[in-house]
């Protein structure tokens, strides 16, 4: 690596660090949001968990498509996937929208810094706070119900989590680009969010879905990433033979990353030409 590459990497790191710290500061500047997030996120989990309990076997633990005793744990991981996925829709994507409405997006884009690094800083802050919320909910679940959530294969889980996060960054960049194109971001974001929850096997296996819908699920990259993470955590059977599932997860992840970067750059260029960066 020559000195030019080193200084470029250092500069990117500095930009990333500055963006991360800026986001962390703004996050803690609104304590109501912090408290609200830490209370509401586990509450969503307990609310739906209570609803789902109605369907569980009367005398014993859950034993459905997920396999005996793993119902609550599987649902818990579904909740984790949703929190992580919200990073791309409501975190990374929404961040551009927030800058747009507060009129700081132009300054942000005029800064002599890489756009992607600035957005990555935001992602890193959300990843940090999401991890805290997930950890705290896991502890709460243990203290309230005595249910300890364990991961069967931690190394595979970490690898699949890394692939999942790469996809989230890519998808988040795409969503960030989308905010420069469309006005009704919240409505679209809601639809995408629900589509993810229903179609990708995040909360329940796609085997529960009607057959034609299942085909649609099979072409969504997140389906394989969710499946691999759940397999690593709970040992549930995978959708594809294991080797093929690894390949599908890696390809999906790389595809999402490249797609996100390309889409974001294209949309930004287009918005610059049309002058629509701050008008949507």
């Amino acid at each position, binding site marked *: 690596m020559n000195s030019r590459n080193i200084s470029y990497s250092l500069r990117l790191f500095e930009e990333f660090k500055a963006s991360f710290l800026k986001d962390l500061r703004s996050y803690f500047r609104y304590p109501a949001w912090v408290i609200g997030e830490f209370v509401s996120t586990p509450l969503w989990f307990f609310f739906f968990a209570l609803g789902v309990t*109605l369907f569980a076997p009367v005398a014993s633990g859950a034993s459905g498509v997920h396999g005996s005793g793993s119902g609550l744990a599987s649902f818990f991981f579904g909740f984790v996937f949703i929190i992580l996925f919200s990073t791309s829709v409501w975190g990374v994507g929404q961040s551009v929208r927030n800058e747009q409405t507060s009129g700081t997006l132009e300054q942000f884009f005029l800064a002599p810094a890489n756009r992607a690094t600035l957005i990555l800083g935001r992602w890193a802050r959300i990843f940090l706070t999401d991890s805290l919320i997930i950890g705290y909910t896991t502890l709460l679940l243990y203290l309230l119900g005595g249910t300890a959530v364990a991961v069967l294969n931690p190394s595979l889980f970490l690898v699949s989590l890394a692939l999942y996060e790469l996809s989230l960054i890519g998808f988040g960049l795409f969503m960030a680009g989308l905010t420069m194109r469309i006005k009704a971001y919240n409505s679209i974001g809601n639809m995408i969010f629900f589509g993810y929850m229903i179609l990708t096997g995040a909360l329940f296996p796609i085997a529960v879905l009607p057959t034609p819908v299942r085909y649609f699920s099979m072409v969504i990259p997140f389906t394989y990433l969710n499946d691999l993470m759940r397999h690593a955590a709970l040992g549930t059977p995978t959708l594809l033979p294991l080797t093929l599932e690894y390949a599908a997860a890696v390809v999906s992840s790389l595809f999402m990353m490249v797609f996100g970067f390309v889409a974001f750059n294209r949309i930004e260029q287009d918005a610059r030409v049309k002058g629509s960066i701050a008008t949507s």
Partner: protein
Amino acid sequence: MKADVQALAAIFWKGLKHHIRYPGEFLTFLLLPFLFTFLVLGMGNAVGGTNAAAYFAARTGTTNIVIYEILGSAVWMTSWVVLEDVGAGIRDEQIKGTLEQNFLAPVNRFTLLVGLSLTDIVITSALFLVVVGVSVAIVMPSSFLSIVPAFLTLLLGLIPLFGMGFLFAGFVVRFKEPYIFIQLVNLIFATLTGTYYPVTFLPYWLQFLSGVLPQTYVIDDMRRIVIANQTLVSLYGSIFILLTLALAYPLVGYAVFRKIEKRAAVTGEFSKY
């Protein structure tokens, strides 16, 4: 009196125009009950397997899962709309800088808040008729007429809900930051009022809190009317409680709102955000 009616009509039309101008928001509220119900059904089937419906029936006394859940979802969305419109509506005006003009207009505050609520009666009625009407027409067409008394229960339940909205509007003027509180309060309402399960599933101390929320009675009554073919007369006990809450919440809500508003007029809170 005539001036009050004119002011009410103006506020009502303004609110309705806002909803018409942003149809995406209404469409989201229309779709959310179906999506949440679908999620619960999907998760339930995954957990209960082929016997999921039987386990559900053993706990709720009905196999009509879709209607049971959609009624809960529809009432939940109704309270969501009311809190967002009445509570956050004040905050929106504050941010846009139009709250002072509204409060300076020679219109009674109560008229202003009731005007906001009137728009919501139309919006929530449309929400109920589309979500519940369509579901009942498809799943239990023979019970379609039962949506009329169910709708009357909803209308009665809206009155205390508006009272809560007034209370919330006061807090918003005082503490700002309404959106996270709206999310939190909506979620607490959903959890406590038996949206997807009977409230008897909750610990006793939480059941006490459920008892002071109007949506608990609205959801339970609707399920009894639509699924168990009961009449409003046979539900007189809970109707009486709803009437009591319909009197108590608006009175308390408005009193708190006025107190906070008076204080804000002295401290200059209105223009701060």
